[in-house]
């Protein structure tokens, strides 16, 4: 790092959130810098790209008032970093990691680059420890395990926040282990921020929570930093301090929109729905930070929340997310309208790591078979229901009618458990009781 801070009054253009500056000697890609505006206004910027003489800088707090004559750029000589310490627990920070709770700065134990490094696949430990969330549709059918990344696909007006909060509150770890929550919010409303704060405080989880909050009104580029800062904090707590960390990131849709803004400001060739072509890689660099590492006590489990525009699961954001994460929990508007809570549409929902986390010593013997059978019977019941809407219930065979009744019961009691909590034993029990109403010959997936 240079001891003398250089200052360059060479800004040649301003374009949306981006500033072009000429002749920055020795700056590197990803380096942080300050943009000085007359009137002692200092903004934070990051070098995105170098093209010969010209550097492309994204300005985090927005480009208003920046001019070509009097404003200047001061490179900082370091990549984006965040200060870390266990004192973070219980604190609330801005989307850039500055305290916003009227308390002093934390005393850093460590300063880390927020981009992180990829975990060596050979160093990863198998994610096979069951997390009981108390929610039947998850525990019974789409089991969450430590180190997994399992997003919630939601839509406008669906209770994704409530569900995320419930998962955070109810997740159990065995005694003797330290559990904590890292909450990263991008572009949420103050209403949502209050909701989470109150919910965490009511559950007594607040002192075990680190929150990084970027509100909808905060500058857009900040949204690109918030999840990286949150995940860097999570990695520190998990792999240095041994915590079992649950990371809730909301809302990934805001994050991707910020990515799109930058892409278009840089004149990049847009991909699907004008999101940048590298969005898959970019999202992967966030989600893949979940995991467990051999020889380390902690784990990072990530639950991102995604609002699907128009409830469309093929929209690029949920689509690319689904290709990276280990499954998804999909919320259904139809079930929400029927007042079923949690309104989880189990058919498209999936947990890819489920088989690692269930079975005799973890949940129960026959858990997988039971789950498969519930799925198969429910899918059949849904088919019958669709057919009944065309041919009428009279056209159904007795067996079909039983399947339809099963599906209704399954939605009402198994999925629609209300706001209460169920142990895994209770969950499996409810499932078994429902299946008992079907003839034995139909239960081909169960071990007899």
């Amino acid at each position: 790092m240079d001891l003398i801070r250089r200052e360059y009054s060479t800004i040649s253009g301003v374009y949306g959130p981006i500033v072009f500056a000429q002749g920055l000697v020795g700056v590197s890609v990803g380096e942080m810098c300050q943009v000085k505006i007359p009137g002692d206004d200092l903004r934070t910027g990051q070098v995105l790209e170098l093209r010969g003489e010209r550097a492309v800088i994204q300005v985090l707090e927005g480009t208003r008032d920046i001019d070509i004559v009097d404003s200047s750029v001061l490179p900082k000589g370091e990549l984006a970093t965040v200060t870390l310490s266990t004192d973070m627990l219980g604190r609330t920070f801005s989307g850039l990691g500055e305290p916003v709770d009227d308390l002093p700065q934390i005393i850093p134990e460590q300063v880390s680059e927020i981009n992180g490094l990829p975990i060596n696949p050979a160093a990863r430990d198998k994610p096979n420890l069951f997390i009981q969330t108390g929610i039947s549709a998850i525990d019974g059918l789409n089991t969450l395990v430590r180190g997994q990344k399992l997003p919630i696909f939601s839509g406008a007006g669906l209770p994704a926040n409530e569900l995320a909060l419930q998962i955070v509150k109810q997740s159990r770890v065995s005694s003797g282990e330290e559990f904590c929550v890292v909450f990263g919010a991008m572009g949420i409303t103050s209403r949502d921020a209050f909701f989470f704060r109150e919910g965490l405080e009511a559950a007594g989880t607040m002192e075990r929570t680190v929150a990084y909050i970027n509100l909808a009104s905060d500058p857009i580029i900040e949204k690109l930093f918030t999840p990286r800062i949150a995940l860097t904090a999570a990695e520190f707590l998990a792999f240095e301090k041994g915590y079992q960390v649950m990371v809730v990131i909301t809302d990934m849709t805001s994050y991707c929109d910020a990515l799109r803004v930058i892409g278009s400001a840089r004149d990049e060739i847009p991909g699907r729905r004008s999101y940048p072509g590298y969005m898959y890689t970019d999202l992967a660099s966030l989600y893949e930070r979940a995991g467990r590492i051999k020889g380390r006590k902690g784990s990072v489990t990530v639950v991102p929340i995604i609002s699907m525009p128009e409830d469309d699961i093929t929209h690029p954001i949920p689509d690319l997310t689904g290709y990276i994460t280990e499954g998804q929990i999909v919320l259904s508007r139809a079930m929400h309208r029927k007042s079923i809570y949690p309104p989880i549409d189990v058919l498209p929902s999936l947990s890819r790591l489920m088989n690692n986390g269930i079975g005799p010593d973890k949940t129960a013997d026959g858990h997988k078979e039971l789950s498969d059978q519930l799925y198969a019977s429910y899918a059949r019941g849904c088919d019958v229901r669709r057919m009944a809407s065309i041919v009428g219930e009279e056209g159904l065979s007795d067996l079909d009618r039983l399947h339809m009744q099963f599906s209704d019961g399954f939605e009402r009691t198994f999925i629609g458990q209300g706001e209460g909590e169920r142990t895994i034993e209770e969950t499996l029990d409810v499932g078994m009781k429902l299946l008992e109403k079907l003839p034995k010959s139909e239960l081909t997936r169960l071990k007899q």
Partner: protein
Amino acid sequence: MTEPIEIRGIIEAVSGPTVVATGMRGVKMHTTAYVGNIGLLGEIIRLNGDRATLQVYEDTGGLSTGEEVVCDGLPLTAMLGPGLLTEVFDGIQRPLAEMMTGDDPFIQRGLTITPLDQNRLWTFVPLKKQGDVVETGDIVGTIEETKTITHRLMVPHGRGGVIKDIMRGNVTGSDRVVVFEDGSHMGIFQRWPVRTPRPVKRKLPPELPFITGQRVFDTLLPVAEGGCAIVPGGFGTGKTMVEQAIAKYSRTDIVIYVGCGERGNEITDVLTEFPELMDPETGRPLSERTIIVVNTSNMPVAAREASIFTGITMAEYYRDMGYRVALMADSLSRWAEALREISSRLEEMPGEEGFPPYLGTLLGGFYERAGRTECLGSDSERRIGATTVIAAISPPGGDFSEPVTQASMRFAGTLWALDADLAYRRHYPAVSWETSYSLYYKKLSEWYERDVAPDMVELRGWLMNLLQRESEVREVAQIIGIDALQEADRLILETSQVAREAFLRQSVFVENDAFATFEKQYWMLKVIRAFMDCAEAALKSGSYIDRIIGSPVKSRLLKMQYEKSEGFKDKAMTIIGEIELAFTAEEDR
């Protein structure tokens, strides 16, 4: 061969994974270079005057303009030799376990590690002696690479002649194992440029099936040994499950698993499971016949682009020894996306959906590296090897009309289309028998009739027909209701349900079901057909369809996949007997 000259340039621009350097006059396309002060590996992908554009195989964060680029004039190569098996590499063949320096679980940048251990001791058994004349591809000796696989040491490309000296016993990477009369020599390792296919004597027609042990593939939609199958499917439809099931259970000598831009936790599954899983044929750990190349989605994008070429080069190397190799690529869409990302940084004119116009050409070139071939070497050493490629594709939104799926369908002989609806009801493998196809079947039918049973091809036709009629009947049932269907049509629904539940669905988690021999597949079909034939006869003689549906013998059929493959024929005969008895009894009532 002229010695490559070192050329040094200066970084002028950095954008994502691409770097532009000046002062590069004289460098060759697709040669490698070390970029910046920490020496990140890169490859030259465009030349313009004395400017060269490089794709960098590591994260470019922290690079500045003015730093140096050193080009050594060598192409991107894979190191080939004993020690590849059981190993786990990244996309540019760096061994991942060796990259964990000390206690650091993260991948630091700028690490250069030789893929294979130079100092490891191997026991070499020569097959040639002083004075023998050998040519490229001839086997000079063997090394027991793992308990399962014997490494056949071949004369590398462009070498050969009269053997002056040949070693025996302990050898390492630095030994001159064979010295020729003309003074040239060879060791146990060789290098091969990954983007160039390894030459063969000739390609052979696809006449043998690639046996997967998965009923829906082997019976309905086979891929030939040396063929290509593509597995497109939206997320959650079980592509990775299909790839892993085949990696575990297929009857092949060597498996190369390329995790291209996929999930770290899934790779962990492969890494922890394979050393524990036993190969049913040899009783040895599966890892002994496996090489894993993994570039997870968060690892550098250019290395992801290189990973499939690194993988197939190793596959070709073992094929050249005369082995049957299966290359599993998961997934080619991630590879294509890496290509797109680099292309867009080069500001190339995009083709369909932003992919570069040459996507199809590159894909075709990759698929054509599969094949059943006669290997190089003297005629006295005639060997046949095969590389079978099973490539997963992840079409956005599960929509097969996108460019990667469409381009792949032009080249691959077998399409295993995965269906979200089947996956939702946990019917795995979720292969749609309606949209999938196999162009190899016709060529393979001779083998089926000869090696399985004379009526196997006919039985398959019967099953396909049944499934086709089922979907027609279902359409009618959607309108008029099941109760209003004719009895014969209801029987079709019943039988096809048995076929789907018992035959097409297969669980890799159940020991007896995970692999089905052809004998078991054949006899399962026989049982299902017997059920249909007997029930039809019973209907004709006045029995009611509800009696047939409610018949307890049906549950016997629905459980038969859980019987062992060994001795399944006897079990099947018993069940057929029970069916006949049950339905004759029906008639008597």
